[in-house]
């Protein structure tokens, strides 16, 4: 998870765009992903977002998420097969060749289709979100959200949440190591995760809250809530913005056509 939700400095076209353009693109992609029930359409959207990332010179950073997404999809597929019986029976999870228990748990076309839709939808949404986060400095994001009428206090909450995810991940790892060094062995699997909760999450939350005082004072002393941002520092709209705007309009048109059709 170390790679998600973080800005990465790259000299690419997405990095040169105004945050508002990227937010509009993100919204359209997310809406289309939710509305679409066609695996080919969703696959096309994954490809489109990935190509955008390649054009922005951070395709590799997006690919870093793929192993986790594939793991998730595999689990989703298995569970859907186990719980959903819909459409044509394509085969059995326990092959018929196995005596006694063979021929049970049918794999249906409906289950495969539904699992594929959910997985690909998540791929599209996470990729599109990454596209924006990797290429947008948080202070530009805050300014853009303010333009969209999100009050500065809530923009700051979002900014702090995004900023502290990697720090808290590192902190969580340190705490885990400290408890392991005390011979703490919660075991593996779900039971282990539950047992692990108290010795890890309590210090994590307590330490994080310990930072809140200083963080709050820093916000005040730097005048972040007044946000009298210097004019002229906003990223101006340029050619990359217009290109993405055209793409957004095309996608929107395709979406409307899809709904009406």
């Amino acid at each position: 998870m170390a790679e998600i939700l973080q800005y990465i400095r790259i000299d690419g076209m997405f990095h040169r765009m105004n945050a508002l353009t990227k937010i509009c693109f993100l919204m359209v992609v997310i809406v289309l992903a939710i509305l679409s029930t066609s695996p080919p359409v969703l696959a096309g959207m994954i490809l489109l977002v990935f190509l955008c990332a390649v054009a922005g010179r951070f395709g590799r950073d997006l690919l870093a998420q793929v192993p986790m997404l594939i793991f998730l999809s595999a689990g989703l597929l298995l569970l859907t097969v186990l719980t959903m019986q819909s459409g044509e029976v394509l085969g059995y999870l326990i092959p018929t060749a196995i005596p006694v228990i063979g021929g049970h748990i049918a794999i249906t076309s409906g289950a495969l289709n539904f699992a594929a839709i959910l997985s690909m939808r998540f791929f599209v949404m996470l990729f599109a979100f990454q596209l924006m986060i990797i290429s947008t400095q948080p202070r530009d994001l805050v300014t853009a959200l303010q333009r969209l009428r999100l009050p500065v206090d809530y923009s700051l909450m979002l900014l702090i949440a995004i900023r502290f995810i990697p720090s808290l991940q590192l902190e969580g790892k340190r705490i885990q190591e400290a408890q392991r060094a005390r011979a703490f062995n919660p075991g593996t699997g779900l039971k282990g995760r539950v047992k692990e909760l108290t010795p890890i999450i309590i210090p994590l939350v307590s330490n994080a809250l310990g930072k809140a005082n200083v963080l709050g004072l820093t916000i005040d002393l730097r005048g972040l809530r007044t946000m009298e941002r210097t004019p002229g520092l906003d990223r101006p709209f340029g050619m990359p913005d217009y290109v993405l705007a055209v793409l957004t309009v095309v996608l929107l048109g395709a979406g409307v056509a899809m709904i009406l059709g």
Partner: protein
Amino acid sequence: MKSRDIAIVGILLAIGAILRYLMNVVPTAIVSNPIIALYCLAIILIRPNVRDTIGIGIVAGIISALISHSIFPPANFISEPLGALVCMALYAATRNHIPLAPTVATFAATLVSGFTFIGVSIVVIASGFISAPGEGFTVGAFIVAVSPVILLTAIANAVIAQVLYIPSSKILMRGAKGEDTQVRRKTMEDESNDLHTPAFRFSGFSYTYPQGTIPALTDVNLIIPRGECVLVNGTTGAGKTTFCLAAAGVLCHEYEGKTEGTLAIFGRDVQGYEDMGDIGRTVGVVFDDADAQLIFTTVEEEVLSGLENRGLKSEEVKTRLEEMLTFTNLTELRYREPHSLSGGQKQRVALAATLASGTDCIILDEATAELDTAATESIIAILTRLREAGKTIIVVEQKPRELAAIADRVITIEHGRITKDETAEAFFATYKDEEPASGKMVDTTSLSQTGEPRIVVDTLVHTYGTNPALRGVSLTIYPGELVAIIGENGSGKTTLVKHLNGLLRPTSGTITVCGMNAAEERVTRLAEKAGLVFQNPDTMLFEDTVEKEMQFGMRNIGVDSITAQERISEVLERVGLSGRLTQFPRAMSRGERQRLAIACVVAMKPDIIILDEPTTGLDPGEANRIMHILKALSEAGHTVIMVSHDMSIVARHAQRIIHMDTGTITSDKTRTNGGRV
């Protein structure tokens, strides 16, 4: 809403996002959302008004939706604000009547959020916007199928919120309160335009924390002229930080508590400033926790944040950014992420962001406490230039000697009172640095060793990705040795000691610990032989009493309860914490928490005790106390290994000093009249 409340919500939502992301491995269309538990906790802790509650819900909804693989993620935009409102209302209604109010509020909020999510999803499915999950989909069957998930999530979230509420509320009690109930009144004339007025004028100033009965500052009468560099000296808990918070106007504007007397900052009554943002135009503060002061995701952005919210012109912002990066030697780091920086680098960024605002005064509260020698020197070099530029500087520092060259004046605080106020010249004329231990240091390899070694490391190599951290380290350590491993940040000290208890495995080479192959042995088994105390004691403390905290490690290695009780009494006596069995660990001072962390490990009776920077952030008295405990442990036969950057501590106490640089041991010397030789 106070800024601290915004920080609390942001941080808790970050933790919720991490947990939520981890929950994605649960492969269902509707999954448990721990973000609800965390935003409910935030609401319970800060008690926002209706508008802010909805705001918190919207932000939680954005985060939930963006990392969700649920059937219709945008439903979070509706379900989370509703859940937040229910939590706020129910907690307000029950908090004075039932002890489990956090549980009830979170449980109800999760149910409302969950069923709202389902309701919205059903509406969009029924209206044909998204596909139904399967051909046989019916609303009734869908609700029946997902209800158990929501119920289980509600139970889990209620437990999480309740479990976290108790330590969280205790932690927050240590600091400021959310609401401001003090009656503010301006008591002095505004003389801010008169450049001859002092930077600070304290007149009979006293302050008592909301939870305290004894004043943390008593009758402070002090004038600090503009352009002066003042060193604030005193033991841990003397009131130095409270003094800094007072000077920065924080006590009067952000904290509850009782204030007496007056304070003028640059000729203006502290109450005459609108808020902390207004004071922030004149006074900048750098705290000891560098990480908490870095809000943005690159160094450049961080420094810009101090510049671009001041209404400056665009060109001026750009010029001052470059000046500031050059001034603080950060030009090469300008695009780095804060979490990837070393402690010294983070502190320089925090300093640069503060200086960027162009304030006339800067206050540093133990800003170099956790830094190594080189990093401390770089901060002091910056302060020297600031002093030459005529800035007023107030520095709290545990190691006064390092500031001898730049301080004009030294004030000493004891029990909240200023007991000495003298020129730096007079202070340092009588100030004595502690003498290093006597004895000659000789090459360890030239000494003949007897007995069975406890640790044998042979050509150990460790690489992080492609970066080598250890390059063929070899060493042997015997029982009863008190070994210090020193070196600058990144020299490989911590990487080396983490191999001794299996937290890291070698890329190549061998490690034998008490006869076990540490490269393959389980961490839990190694922990019985080699205990590790981390730099920050708060990394391991999680129980609500000292007794339970100590029992945790012993229970993990199967020590029976009667033996455990005996050991607890014995070890607490040894570390000077007798009679503190029922105390909340996190309410103890930093030095006491460090001693408790050591006690927790010592109670497990490991042959080897490893400590990462055990004296960091402690005053000299507390640091010496820790070192005497370690010395006694080594004399009792334990092998004690400490990683440290504090050369004066090492010179006074260590029997053997191993110096590391870029992943190799550059010297290994032993004191000839030490305990072992």
